C-alpha cells in the first residue's frame, strides 16, 4: 500500500486536509469569539476600570509568576479565582481591602518564602486591578478550577 501511495497523493492530502481543518478552525474561532463576548464573560460588567486593571496586570508582567485561568508561570498562586478565595462574592468590601493590603505589604521579606515585589501601585491602580480580578472570576470556565485553592 505504501508503494502505491504516491508523493503527489501525499502532497494533495497535505494541502486539502490542512485547508479543510483550517477553515473549520476559523469558523469555530468565530463562534467561540461570539460566545465569549455574549455568553461566557460579563460583557456588561467590562467597565473602563476593568480594562485599566488588565493594563496594570500586564504592565507588571504578573503572568510571569502567577497563572490566570491556569495559564502563565507556575511560581505563584492562580488568580482567576482569587476574588472568590478572598470571599469577594459574599463580602466585596472586605475582599477588596484584603487584596489591596496584601499587595501593599509585599515583599514579605520572610526567609525561605517566595517574594512578591512591591509595585508601588496607586490607590486607583489597586482598585482597577481588583476590579479586573473580580471580573475574571465571573467568567464561565466550565467549572474550572476544581476547588477554591485554584
Amino acid at each position, binding site marked *: 500500500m505504501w508503494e502505491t501511495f*504516491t*508523493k503527489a497523493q*501525499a502532497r494533495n*492530502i*497535505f494541502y486539502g*486536509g*490542512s485547508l479543510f*481543518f*483550517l477553515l*473549520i*478552525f476559523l469558523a*469555530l474561532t468565530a*463562534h*467561540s*469569539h461570539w*460566545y*465569549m*463576548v455574549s455568553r*461566557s*464573560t460579563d460583557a456588561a460588567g*467590562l467597565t473602563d476600570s*476593568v480594562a485599566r486593571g*488588565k493594563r496594570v*496586570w*500586564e504592565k*507588571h*508582567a*504578573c*503572568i*510571569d*509568576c502567577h*497563572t*490566570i*485561568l*491556569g*495559564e502563565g*508561570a*507556575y*511560581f*505563584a*498562586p*492562580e488568580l482567576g479565582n482569587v476574588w472568590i478565595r478572598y470571599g469577594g462574592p459574599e463580602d466585596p468590601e472586605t475582599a477588596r481591602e484584603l487584596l489591596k493590603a496584601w499587595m501593599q505589604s509585599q*515583599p514579605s521579606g520572610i*526567609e525561605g*518564602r*517566595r*517574594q512578591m*515585589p512591591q509595585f508601588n501601585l496607586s490607590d486607583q491602580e489597586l482598585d482597577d486591578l481588583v476590579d*479586573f480580578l473580580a471580573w475574571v472570576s465571573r*467568567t464561565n*470556565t*466550565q*467549572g*474550572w*478550577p*476544581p*476547588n*477554591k*485553592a*485554584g
Partner: protein
Amino acid sequence: MKYETQKIAFWYFAVAMLLFALQMVFGVLSAYVYVAPNFLSETIPFNILRMVHTNALIVWLLLAFFGAAYFLVPEETEREIESPLLAYIQLAILVVGALGAVIGYFFGIHEGREFLEQPLWVKLGIVVAALIFLYNVSMTALKGRKTAVTTVLLLGLWGIAIFFLFALYNPVNLSVDKLYWWYVVHVWVEGVWELVMAAILAFLMLKLTGVDREVVDKWLYVIVALALASGLLGTGHHYYWIGAPGYWQWLGSVFSTLEILPFFAIVLFTFSMVWKGGRDHPNKAALLWSLGTAVMSFFGAGVWGFMHTLAPINYYSHGTQVTAAHGHLAFFGAYVSLNLAIITYAMPFLKRRAPYNQVLNMISFWLLNAGMAFMTFTLTFAGVVQTHLQRVQGQGYMDVQGELGVFYWMRLGAGVVVAIGALLFIYATFVPRRLELITPAGSLRQAAE
C-alpha cells in the same frame, strides 16, 4: 559549502548560540530561586528572570530556523540567496530588537502577555525582519529548483509570520485575548513550527543517509499533513477552561491526542531512513542529534503532551508543574535538538573543515538529553503531587509548594547539567580542534556531501 551565500547561516547560528547561553544562565538562576526564594528577589524578581529565559529561547530558535533556511535553501534551489545584504540587515534588526528587549526587561520595560512581553517596537521590528526574510528566501525559491523541502519550509516560515500578527491584537476581554494569544503560541509550536522541523529533518535525512528524494518527500508530506490535520483543531486543548464553549473539551481531547501521530511518524521516518540509507556519513554527531530530535520530540511533545491533554485529566492538572515538565521537554526535544542537529551538520561546511570535535559534541548530546530527561521526571513528580494535594484535596497553593522542595532541588541539579551540556556543545561546534578524543574506524576519511 557549495554556495557562497550559505555563509550567512554562520552569523545566525552564532547569535543563536549566544542567546542559548543566555537562556541557560537565566534558567539556572530561576531554578535556584525556586529553592532559595530570597535570592535576587529585590533586584531581578522572578518574573523578569523567567521572561529572559523564555524570550531568549524563542528568539534563538527563530534565529536558528532562519540560519537553517539560509543554509539549505541555496542547496535545495541550486542558486545563491537573492540578497545577502538584506539577510544581514534582517539579522541586525533582530539583534537590536533582542538586545533592546532584554536590557529593557531589567528596567521594567515590557508588555505583559506571556512570551509576548516584547515592547511594541520590538514586535514591529520582528514583523519587518520576517518580511525581509520571506521576500529574500521566497524570491530565491521562486527562481530556483522547486523541491518539497523548500516548499514545506517556506510554508512553515510564512505561517510563523502570519500567525505572529495576532501578537499585535490585545483585546480587553481576557477570554478573547487568550483565544487569539493561542493563535501565536499554539499554532506556532504545535502547527507551523512542525513544518519547519519536518523540512529541516528531511533535508538532514537526504544528506546524512543518501536515501532517494522521492521517498523522503513522501514522508515529509505525510508528516506535515498529520501535523496540521491534528494540530489546528488540537488548539482546542487550550480552550477548555478560558471561557470558550464546552465542545472544545471533545474536539481538543480528540485532535490533540492525534497530535502524537506526526511525532511518531517522524520517529518511523528518521529510523527507517537511516536503516535504508547506505551512506556512511562522516558527521556522526549530526546523525545522533537528528535521531535524538525524533525520539525526544516524540516523548516531550507527544507522550508528555498526551499525558495531560484529555479534558477530564487536564481539569486537575491544568497549570501545575505537569505543564512545566511537558513544556521543557517538548521545546528541548523538538526544537532545541533540531537546531543543534542542523548546526552540527552545517558548521563543518561553513568553516570549510572536516567534521570536528564530534566526541565532545556527542558528550554534550548525552549531558543535555540526560539532564533534560531528569528535569522532566522531577517536574512531573512535583506536578503529580501538586495536582493531588491542591486540586484533589484542596490544600492552598503555597502550602503545597512547600512540600515540593526536594523536587525543585533535583530540578536545579538537572538544570546545571543541561547548562554545562549547552556550553560544551557551543565549545565543540564553534572552537576548532584537530584531534578527536577517540579515533573513529576509518569512516572520517571518506568523502561525503
